[in-house]
């Protein structure tokens, strides 16, 4: 039983990171209508910017995360302006190819600047605490708490403010958004900013547990794709629920099935869910 609860907590940690990444991916899907393959590169850049801000600039962890969120958010905006905006009237295939191009470019860039080595990110929250007989590091508590807080803030922003709602409106009907006076350019930039920030936050939270390296985004982004397909493309609750489903299944699967098969579980779930509900769990009708 104790092992089970311990694994649930692990699932919650991993799921929080997945959900943050998937949220950014799903938001941008609403704008581009293609999955942004470069999203994993934003995640990776987030890890490196936080690490550099800590080791080179000597910033404390918390501040480094904020700097990283701002910097990678701006990188997202740059991506939208320089690559996706000029392609707005091109066939969707061009967006996909461009996204892969950005991915390769950013990975080569990271390797050039920071090298190919695996690096560890120090955290001031490495202490182990014991609650109700469960042992976990403060970093894990931090991951869960900040992810939940950010998701609540994001939900309130999207649901309760005009600017936030304009993101949803644009995803549902771009021309309709234009015709009520929404500046779709600004909304697209804002969405890419949020998406980049969420990826940077996820990477900065996960890096002290995992490691920082140029390929760190690969598996995460593949799983984020699984999550948004599972949750329904473009669905925000779907991204959150999907992230946690994947987190729980992975950590429970690693314990009770085999640790070696941990990463296969995501894709097995994808196959099962798409067989039963081909449009995803939170499928939207009438697209």
């Amino acid at each position, binding site marked *: 039983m104790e092992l089970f609860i311990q694994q649930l907590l692990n699932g919650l940690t991993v799921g929080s990171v997945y959900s943050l990444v998937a949220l950014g991916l799903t938001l941008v899907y609403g704008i581009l209508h293609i999955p942004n393959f470069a999203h994993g590169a934003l995640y990776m850049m987030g890890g490196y910017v936080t690490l550099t801000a800590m080791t080179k600039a000597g910033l404390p962890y918390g501040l480094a995360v904020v700097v990283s969120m701002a910097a990678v958010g701006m990188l997202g905006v740059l991506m939208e302006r320089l690559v996706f905006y000029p392609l707005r009237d091109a066939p969707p295939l061009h967006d996909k190819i461009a996204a892969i191009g950005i991915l390769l470019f950013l990975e080569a860039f990271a390797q050039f600047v920071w090298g190919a080595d695996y690096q560890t990110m120090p955290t001031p929250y490495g202490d182990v605490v014991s609650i109700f007989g469960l042992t976990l590091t403060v970093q894990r508590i931090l991951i869960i708490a900040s992810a939940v807080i950010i998701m609540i803030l994001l939900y309130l922003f999207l649901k309760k403010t005009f600017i936030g709602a304009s993101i949803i409106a644009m995803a549902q*009907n771009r021309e*309709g958004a234009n*015709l*009520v*006076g929404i500046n779709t350019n600004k909304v697209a930039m804002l969405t890419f900013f949020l998406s980049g920030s969420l990826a940077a936050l996820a990477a900065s939270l996960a890096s002290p547990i995992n490691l920082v390296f140029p390929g760190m985004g690969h598996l995460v982004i593949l799983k984020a794709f699984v999550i948004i397909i599972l949750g329904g493309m473009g669905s925000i609750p779907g991204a959150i629920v999907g992230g946690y489903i994947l987190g729980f299944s992975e950590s429970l699967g690693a314990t009770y099935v085999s640790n070696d098969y941990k990463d296969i579980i995501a894709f097995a779930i994808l196959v099962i869910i798409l067989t039963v509900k081909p449009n995803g769990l939170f499928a939207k*009708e*009438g697209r």
Partner: protein
Amino acid sequence: MLEVANVSVRYGSFAAIRDVTFSVKRGEIAVLLGANGAGKSTLFRTISGLHKPVQGEIRLNGERIDSLPPDRIVGRGVVQCAEGRKLFSRMSVYENLLMGAYVHRKDKDGIRRSLEYVYELFPILREKRNEPAGSLSGGQQQMLAIGRALMSRPAVLLLDEPSVGLAPLIVEQMFATIKQINQEGTTILLAEQNAHAALSIAHHGYVFENGTIVASGTAEELLANDDVRKAYIGG
């Protein structure tokens, strides 16, 4: 109030609109009559800034608006209720109406007043305010689309085929409501295939064929014009 002068629009090499000139006076209902594919929607999209004309000018109260982006044109008070309605189908009726007030988002009192006005005009929208827009019937969706456009407090309201796909009884109500909106101070430009119903509430009409205006006049003149009667009214 709204002037379209010598406007031409192309899709690649296809001239969708050729040298169109007309105007809508303050306080009136003007109607563009024409069959499917005559170019009415293209013209509306151009006025709203979704297409750029290759020549000509579009002016609102003497100021050019043809180079402005769509959101700024809405800000100036030229608001379109587009064909196909373009609603946010998974948002509630209330949220759709709120988004309609996007350009006035800082004016909370104004939004409340507009909302009350729209709910009085279309009581069914108040009843269904928490339902997703996509779950409404065709007629209700059309009401919501007009309501959402009214939320931006238009000086000129462009209505693109508001009667399309609606039952005859609903069409009649729709035209009565359009007339009421006009009498309460909104200038209206209406695009319609339903010539008889449209001319019965309009002041001026323009007949559109193959991307250009082939006849124009007051509503009475067009109703009495034999060619127009043959082509659009039947008999």
